[in-house]
C-alpha cells in the first residue's frame, strides 16, 4: 500500500488533473500484481497524454483511464453480482452515462463497496464531494403509507389507501371512546357515534344552562368588584389531588404577577393569535 500513496502524492503535485488516478490508486493495492501493471500502464498513458496534448488533456487522458479502470470494475462486479454495489453502479450509470467523469466515479464507487476502504478515498480524491452526494442516492427514505396487506387482502394502491384510512378512523374512534364517559361498553360504530352526539348535545345544553345560571347570579350580585381576583385561584384549586393544587396555586401566582398587560393587548387585538 505504501508505494502507491507516495506515487500519488508526487503525481498530483506534478499534474493538476491527475486526481483521477490518485482517487483510483489505493484500491488497486489489494488486487495484486496484475493490476499494479495495469496501473503502471495507466500512468504511462497519462503522462504521455499530458506531454503530447496540453490543450485537450482532460478529454484524452480521462478517457483512457476510464476505459482501463472500468474494465477492472466490471470484473469485480461480476464476481459479486448480488452485492449492494452492483445496484449502485447500475443506477449511477443510468443517470449519467455520457459524462466520463461520472464513469470514473462509478468505478470508484464499485471498488469502494467491494474493498471497503472508503476511509482512504474521501480525503484523497478531489471528487470526494461528488462522491458523497452520490452515495446516499440509491436508498433514500421514501414517504409512503406503510400498510401491509395480510393474506387474502387486496394489494392494489386504492385498497391499501382505503385500508389506511379505515385504520385511521378506527383509531380516532377509539380516542373518542376513551373521552366520552360510558362509551367503552358500546359496541358498533353507529352506536358509538350516537353516544358521542348525545354527549356533545348534553354538554352544549349544559353550557346554555350554566350561562343562564351565571346570568342569574350575576344580576343578583350586580355590582361586586374584584370577582376575578379570587375566582381564578379557587377554580384552579378545585382539583381533588395534591399535584393539581400545587400546580394551580403556582399558576395563579404567575398570573397575578405578570399576565396583566398581555391581557390588555389581547383584548385590543382580538386575541386570536396570542392565545395559542
Amino acid at each position, binding site marked *: 500500500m505504501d508505494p502507491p500513496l507516495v506515487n500519488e502524492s508526487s503525481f498530483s503535485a506534478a499534474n493538476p488533473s491527475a486526481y483521477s488516478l490518485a482517487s483510483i490508486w489505493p484500491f488497486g493495492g489489494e488486487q495484486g500484481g496484475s493490476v499494479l501493471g495495469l496501473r503502471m500502464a495507466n500512468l504511462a498513458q497519462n503522462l504521455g497524454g499530458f506531454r503530447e496534448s496540453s490543450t485537450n488533456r482532460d478529454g484524452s487522458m480521462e478517457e483512457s483511464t476510464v476505459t482501463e479502470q472500468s474494465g477492472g470494475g466490471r470484473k469485480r462486479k461480476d464476481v459479486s453480482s448480488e452485492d449492494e454495489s452492483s445496484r449502485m453502479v447500475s443506477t449511477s450509470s443510468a443517470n449519467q452515462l455520457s459524462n466520463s467523469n461520472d464513469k470514473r466515479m462509478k468505478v470508484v464507487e464499485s471498488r469502494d463497496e467491494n474493498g471497503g476502504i472508503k476511509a482512504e478515498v474521501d480525503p484523497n480524491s478531489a471528487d470526494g464531494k461528488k462522491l458523497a452526494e452520490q452515495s446516499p442516492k440509491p436508498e433514500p427514505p421514501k414517504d409512503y403509507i406503510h400498510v401491509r396487506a395480510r393474506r387474502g387482502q387486496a394489494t392494489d394502491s386504492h385498497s391499501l389507501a382505503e385500508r389506511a384510512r379505515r385504520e385511521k*378512523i378506527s383509531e380516532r374512534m377509539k380516542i373518542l371512546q376513551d373521552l366520552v364517559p360510558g362509551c367503552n361498553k358500546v359496541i358498533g360504530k353507529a352506536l358509538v*357515534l350516537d353516544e358521542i352526539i348525545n354527549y356533545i348535545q348534553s354538554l352544549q345544553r349544559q*353550557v346554555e344552562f350554566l350561562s*343562564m345560571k351565571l346570568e342569574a347570579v350575576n344580576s343578583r350580585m350586580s355590582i361586586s368588584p374584584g370577582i376575578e381576583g379570587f375566582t381564578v385561584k379557587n377554580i384552579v384549586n378545585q382539583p381533588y389531588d395534591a399535584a393539581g393544587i400545587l400546580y394551580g396555586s403556582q399558576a395563579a401566582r404567575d398570573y397575578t404577577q405578570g399576565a396583566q398587560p398581555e391581557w390588555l393587548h389581547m383584548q385590543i387585538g382580538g386575541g386570536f393569535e396570542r392565545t395559542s
Partner: protein
Amino acid sequence: MPNSKSAITLLNSTSSRFRFARTFLRLFSRIKSQRSATFASAPPDQLKRQSQRIKMVAYSSMARVAGPRRAWARALLFKLQTRPRHRTLMRRKRRPSTSPDDQVGKLRRLLPGGETMDVCTLLEETANYIHCLSTQVKVMKAISDQHLSTPN
C-alpha cells in the same frame, strides 16, 4: 414512569382549566361592565339576551383557548364574529354535506365548521371539541357554585 406521566397529564389538564377560567372571566367581566353601565332599566327580556351573551362569551373563550390551529375553533369564532346575514350569504356557497341523515351527518352539523371536513378530521376535531367543552362546563360550574356559596 407511569406515575410521572399521569402527573404530567394532570398538570396539563389543570393548566388548560386555568387558561379556560382566565379567558372566560376576562370576557365575562367585560360584558359585566357593559351591562352594569346599562343596568338601571332592565326589562325582563334582557335577561334572556344577557344569558345568550354569556353563552357566546363561553364559546368564544373556549375557541380562543383552543387556538387557531383547530378547525372548529376557527369556525366558531368566525360564526360568532360575523353578522347573521353575512353568514347566510357565506353558507350558500358551501357544498352540502354528503350524508345528511346518518350519525356522521349529525356530528357534522353539531361540530362548528364540520360541514367541510372529511371524516378523519371530523373525528379528530370532535375529540378536541369534547375535551374543550367539558373543561368549559367544569369551569362554568365552578364559577357558579362559588358565587352561590358565597353570596355577598
